[in-house]
């Protein structure tokens, strides 16, 4: 009987296997290395531009050295802050509705709409904000930018609120109702607090996402050279400034673009990582 246990022929297959594994490793490393390359470059180019005056001053005209992105930082805080204030109630309420009224044509329609919205390119959302808040008022405004950012944040908030509320055990909700609590009290004082960690995490991630968005701002906030805190007026925004400086032909502005880019990356990473750490700690703290 010829039960050949020799490794003849296996050598070539083994080699193919090693080659393949090596290729896969290479691809994974390539992607990771790309990130490090971009990060590294931004840090190296941008760190030189960052100093106190960069963070606190207005942009200087071309030719005048110095200046900064102070108004952009302020503008970003105002625009994103306003967007968050608008997105949270709508997103949370819709999530509560979907969690409480689960099945049926209306909830399914809402979920479908939410999925559609999450796929809409941000530039199209910018067009919507323009059509609704800029064109009729014939006026660029920070508020219209916040409106656009709100639209970008909503799908994540809605989806996470629904999932988080759903994952609170049914028995906790029934326990509250069995005590004679109204649906309102049961949801708001008992179920929602339990679902909070996941919702806050999603909020941080949504904020991280819009911090990195520029497209909708082009024709809503429009940008500005001055300090501005009135949401009804055009306003500077950090990522918009980076964009404007980057495509300008002036080296002094271009180096400030790198500085701004570094600020953006730090902000987005802090928010994203902070969100994950927060979630992990909150999950551990709850004991269950």
């Amino acid at each position: 009987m010829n039960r050949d246990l020799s490794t003849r022929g296996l050598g070539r297959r083994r080699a193919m296997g090693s080659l393949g594994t090596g290729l896969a490793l290479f691809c994974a490393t390539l992607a990771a290395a790309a990130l490090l390359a971009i990060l590294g470059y931004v840090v190296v180019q941008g760190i030189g531009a960052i100093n106190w005056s960069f963070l606190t001053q207005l942009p200087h005209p071309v030719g005048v050295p110095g200046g900064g992105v102070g108004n952009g930082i302020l503008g970003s805080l105002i625009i994103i802050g306003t967007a968050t204030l608008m997105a949270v109630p709508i997103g949370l309420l819709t999530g509560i509705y979907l969690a409480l009224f689960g099945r049926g044509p209306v909830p399914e329609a809402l979920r479908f709409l939410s999925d559609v919205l999450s796929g809409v390119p941000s530039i199209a959302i910018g067009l919507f904000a323009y059509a609704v808040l800029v064109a009729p008022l014939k006026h660029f405004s920070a508020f219209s930018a916040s409106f656009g950012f709100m639209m970008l944040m909503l799908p994540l908030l809605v989806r996470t609120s629904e999932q988080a509320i759903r994952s609170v055990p049914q028995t906790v909700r029934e326990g509250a109702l069995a005590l004679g609590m109204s649906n309102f009290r049961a949801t708001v004082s008992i179920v929602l607090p339990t679902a909070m960690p996941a919702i806050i995490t999603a909020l941080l991630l949504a904020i991280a996402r819009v911090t990195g968005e520029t497209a909708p701002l082009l024709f809503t906030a429009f940008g500005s050279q001055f300090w501005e805190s009135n949401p009804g007026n055009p306003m500077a925004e950090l990522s918009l400034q980076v964009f404007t400086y980057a495509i300008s032909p002036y080296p002094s502005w271009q180096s400030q673009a790198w500085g701004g880019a570094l600020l953006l990356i730090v902000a987005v990473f802090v928010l994203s990582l902070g969100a994950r750490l927060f979630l992990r700690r909150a999950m551990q703290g709850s004991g269950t």
Partner: protein
Amino acid sequence: MSPADRGFAAVVYLGSSLFAILIIGLFVELVLGSWPSIVKFGPAFIFSSSWDPINSKFGALPMIYGTVVTSLIAIILASFIGIMAAVFLSDFAPRWLGQPLSFLIELLAAVPSVVYGLWGLFVLSPFVRTAVGPALQKVFGWTPLFSGPIYGVGLLTAGIILALMIVPTVTAISRDVIAAIPRDLREASMALGTTKWETAIRVVLPAARIGIFGACILALGRALGETIAVTMVIGNRPEISASLFAPSYTLASVIANEFTEATTNIYISALIELGLILFFVSMIVNGLARVMIWSVRGSERT
């Protein structure tokens, strides 16, 4: 129902209705804004290749071409790299290597678009112009794809940047899908005497192909809508050229580049119509992707 409950229900209904109205309103406004352009140019808009603001002649073909080409380049590159990376991370990587690599790749998704554009403009473009471009031209210069002057900005650079931006999507979802394939399948294959690599390629990947395909389609959807990074490296020229080195335009980047300069109503309307086309394309592509990913991951949605 108590007054508190009634009030609560009313507020919840209000919030949800507002949500629905906003999204439906988005669609309606895009249609309303495009209407003058739709009426004036009709279906020929999609096939016309002239983009002439001065004479108010507008056609979407160059933008569609640019969008398709850059997205194709992106998805081809990102699928290969992403799927290979996913296979490695789920089936081959030891924990000490897999976790940090996964983490770094996911961070790629967090990088702001304008930062990609900045890096693309000042690092990748010169690199393409001085190194990658000439190398490709030397080998493939006889094809129209790699002929012509190399500016650095253009379809190829935009495609590469897009690929980087969507690799995390492909990798993360594919990795989850692959990891969800039951262990029994792998063990059955190994028990037949195959190598781990053969198992991964011939057994696991085919089993996961629907989910992986869905991941790629989803990534494609993201590439189609990407605006800022593309507009910074594509050259912004409304021309159709066979060469990948040529500057071009995408649906998203033309809106970004020209909207604030648009002077006439028909100009604005044409740009909004491009946005409407983008809306539909994204909706279809994303819908397709979700259907595929659902069928593999069950009720858990991305």
